[in-house]
């Protein structure tokens, strides 16, 4: 199972979203991606749902922690 961790702090939009989508697109098979970022990646959520991915996004300190799970 793939595990990817991204630190997207300090990046301007839409770089965090692009980095997350690129990482997910390059993920072979099931896996889990976690990313920390300063902003809530609101435009990313419909993109994740379109790809059929499960996700949570919670406040984490002064930023947000996104977790995306991919079954296959």
């Amino acid at each position, binding site marked *: 199972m793939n595990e990817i961790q991204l630190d997207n702090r300090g990046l*301007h*939009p*839409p*770089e965090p*979203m*692009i980095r997350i*989508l*690129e990482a997910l697109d390059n993920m072979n098979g099931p896996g889990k991606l976690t990313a920390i970022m*300063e*902003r*809530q990646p*609101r*435009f990313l*959520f*419909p*993109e994740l*749902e*379109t790809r059929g991915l499960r*996700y*949570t*996004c*919670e*406040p984490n300190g002064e930023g*947000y922690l996104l977790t995306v799970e991919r079954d296959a």
Partner: protein
Amino acid sequence: MISSGESVSDPAGSGGLLAVSLAFFLCGCIALIVHGASLLTLHAFAAFTVMAVVGASNQLVPVLTGARPAPARNVIVLSAPLVLGFIFLLGGFAGFHGLFSIAAPLLFVGVTAWSIWTINRIRTAPLEAQTRAAVVTATVAFIAAATLGAIMALALDGRLPAALLLLAPAHASLVIIAFASTFVFAVSYRFVPMFSLAHTTEGRWTRSAQWTIAVAGVVGALIFLSAWYMRAAAVIALVSVIAAVVVHVQTLKKRMRKKIDVSLRYASAAWVFAFLAACCTLLATWHPDKAPAAVAFAILGWLSLSILGYSYKVVGFLAWEYARRKHPTAKLPALGNAVPERASNISLGLLIAGTVGAALSMAIAPQALRAAAAIYAVGGFGAVAVLTQLGWRYVGLKA
């Protein structure tokens, strides 16, 4: 699942304001047919632009800058004087001149209150210094434009000297260029890569166009001193448009999403009209009879197409977010292909044809204006119908 709590913006306030702005847009389309190139028509489109910027910024400011999101109730209460002010202003231009004296204080107070509130929100926000500075610049220009507008509204009602109406070109320069265009330039820098899924083009000069366009608006506002100020403003605006387009083209070359989506198709057409508007403004400094064509390119083409184009994404997204909050576990229709391609493309074609037709008829063949206006209006109603259908697809979802 999306987290809940105070850190999440409520899309209802901004969504409501966007609906109001689209209603003003439809009023503008009808006024263009009925009244032609009149102040009533112009200010209906101005109301559309202002309410769209106000509505959109309430969502964008927190998303981009990390500012604290505002409750929907605050957004609606703060925007109410603006909406009422524009309704009274349009009533004044429709012939009920006494309404100018009500519109003037309402709009001035509304603009000032919203501007102070917005500046105060982003003053201490932690992120995006350049975007925050651009929004503050646009907002200050907005207050200046509203001040001139309020003075002229009182002059139209006979409460101030009629000579003050000579401030109209300065007012237009501040509203169209320094306020609305600066805002569109600033958000486009984030929207183009966001909508095309592209890495942002970051460089020392890549955001300079948002500053030069603001300068153009301020320089143009000095036209009452000499026509040379507007000439200089048009040249600066022209260079700004070219610089912004170069950055956007570089960004689009790096996009993940192969297809240019509907928002960016509208935006591409809008940038062409921005170029034409700047060229026409320059020409109008020698041939003032071409000024209406410049305004047509700027309002019907540049600003309206930018706002309508970005609205496809923003309305869809706000409606999707509303549905997601209302039905946290439901499977929602995919947002990526929610916009009907054919209908939005036909609307775009009609809006482009209508804008070109309106500008040309204002410049050389006034008798053709009504036909061009009708084409534009059909395109406008089509675009609003698509946006309404798009929004309702999510907002109207049953559990």
